[in-house]
């Protein structure tokens, strides 16, 4: 199975779903016959996208070698980085900016192979603290940080 056929098929599915949804966009009474309403542009995009996706699926490129090259990629670390991003999103409000950013940076360094504790500490905590200081003291941007509030710093 070539990459173009698979990606074309997935895009076609997405485009058709988008087009179907375009017909379900609610309209104000009487606006259905207007030259343009809230459905017109999405419908045009949906039709265009479906057409191009269909053509991609129909005519895969000659040099398409399928997914063989994908096996040579390092998937583990990017997946861990994405998981780290999601955790950062979950923690930034509950744990606070300083701790979550420090952990995010240190976690990122660890995932990418850094193991020296001093480097991990120096490349994360001062960055997070410095960034928060610039935001809070210099730019006047307040970020919720329960930990720093509890200590009385914020």
């Amino acid at each position: 199975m070539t990459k173009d056929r698979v990606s074309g098929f997935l895009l076609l599915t997405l485009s058709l779903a988008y087009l179907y949804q375009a017909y379900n966009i609610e309209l104000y009474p009487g606006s259905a016959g207007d030259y343009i309403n809230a459905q017109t542009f999405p419908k045009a995009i949906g039709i265009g996208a479906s057409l191009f996706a269909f053509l991609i699926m129909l005519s895969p490129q000659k040099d398409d070698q399928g997914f063989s090259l994908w096996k040579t990629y390092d998937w583990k670390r990017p997946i861990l980085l994405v998981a780290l991003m999601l955790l950062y999103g979950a923690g930034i409000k509950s744990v606070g900016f300083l701790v979550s950013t420090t952990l995010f940076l240190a976690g990122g360094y660890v995932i990418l192979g850094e193991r020296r504790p001093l480097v991990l500490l120096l490349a994360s905590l001062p960055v997070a603290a410095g960034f928060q200081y610039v935001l809070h003291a210099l730019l006047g941007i307040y970020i919720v940080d329960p930990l720093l509030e509890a200590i009385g710093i914020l």
Partner: protein
Amino acid sequence: MFEGVLTGLTTVLQPVNLLMVFVGCFAGTFIGMLPGLGPISAIALMIPVTYGFDPASGLILMAGVYYGAIFGGSTSSILLNAPGVAGTVATSFDGYPMAKQGHAGKALAIAAYSSFAGGTIAAIFLLLAAPALASVSLSFQSSEYFALMVLGLTAVSAFAGRGQFLKAMAMTCLGLGLATIGQDPASDITRYTFGSLDLLDGISFLLLAMATFALSEAMMTVLKKDNIDPKARSVAQSDLGSMKVTRDEVKVMVPVIGRSSILGFFIGVLPGAGATIASFLAYGMERNIAPAEEKKNFGYGSIRGLTAPETANNAACSGSFVPLLTLGIPGFGTTAVMLGALISYGVQPGPRLFVEQPAVFWSVIVSMYIGNIVLLILNLPLIPYIARLLALPAQLLVPLVMFFSLCGVYLVSFNTFDIYMMAFFAVAAILLRLTGYPMAPLILGFVLGRLMEENLRRALEIHDGWSFIWQRPITLAIFMAIALILGLPLLDGLRRRRDSRIETMGEGG
């Protein structure tokens, strides 16, 4: 015009704006040098920093970053044979061999002088062309704008490369589709929000730009294990040699600079083309017209081969500002990001910008001269030191780029949903990149989506239907150009399919 230049000079020479030029050029050079990160990422990373500034300062900073990123890309092309930017790939053809021969300093100096000359000559063209085009485009109506936007989107796809046309068009549609999420600006009807309040205002442009460029480019370097060749790294870390260029070498460079800057500027003005195409065309043109003796040197450290793409890519950068500043229509990805940033500052580029906010208009043009001078007198001597920064290990750089991208978006909305959405779009962008889909048309489609719909609505209402296509000659001419642009790649594709079928039949027989 003289008054305008004076206005621009007064704005740019304010200490804060001069600082913006310096910071922009320096930051751009550094980010552009990092393999994998291009000017779009560099500019996107700068946008959150510029939110508090006035539009002129913000745009000056971004113009500096743009130039710096292209220059930084040239540096890594010459020193590491790892172009950080697509527009400087052609630079590595002769720049890297020159560096390997022990003339890295000279190669960098030639690149810097060529960039300076190309950028400066093109900025003069911009100075002349932009006000003229802006006054012509004052007579444009919504129908022309709509047609120009369609032209821009189709041209980007047509220039996307052989076999890439359909994929680029699909990405354009995806970008346009993403722009429809949220409230319809005309009727306030919600579209594609699926009841989520987080999607009511639509997807932020910054979020999409950061996720599809900065985040995904950074993660792609991890995925593809893009480590700089240690041998190349040692070239960068070693003594770069003399930066002096002899009189004979200058004599060789001057005519090449003249030709390449004109070519680069006009390619840059064209929607869809840009620094990459300009640099390859200039390289190809010089190789074709070079004397037989000189032709042999191409690929082995030819001065002409280095001068041509370097001049053309900078000239194209200046050229790409013409449609952005005068029509408000970006020609390709980088200027699309700039347009998005301008809109978020509350500035609408276009012919009215020239009339209503001359300070912004002229200061950008003048900042290009200043930026070129900064690159020449500040960055060139600093290159040996900036090159040392490349020794910073990737395991530290990637999480930092990710952090700045995530924070840049989060600090605008303070909504954690944006972080999840960024993770989603980054993953989607990586998968799309791996399957050969270009990202620039997506961002261009997204930025132009709402503007297109607004202009289409106005055109349909004014003309009571679709008659504007044939009633207005300029609109008709633009649509004919679009038909040509759409038709040629399709015909080419059909011809190639027919050829391959004949080939297969031959093999069978």
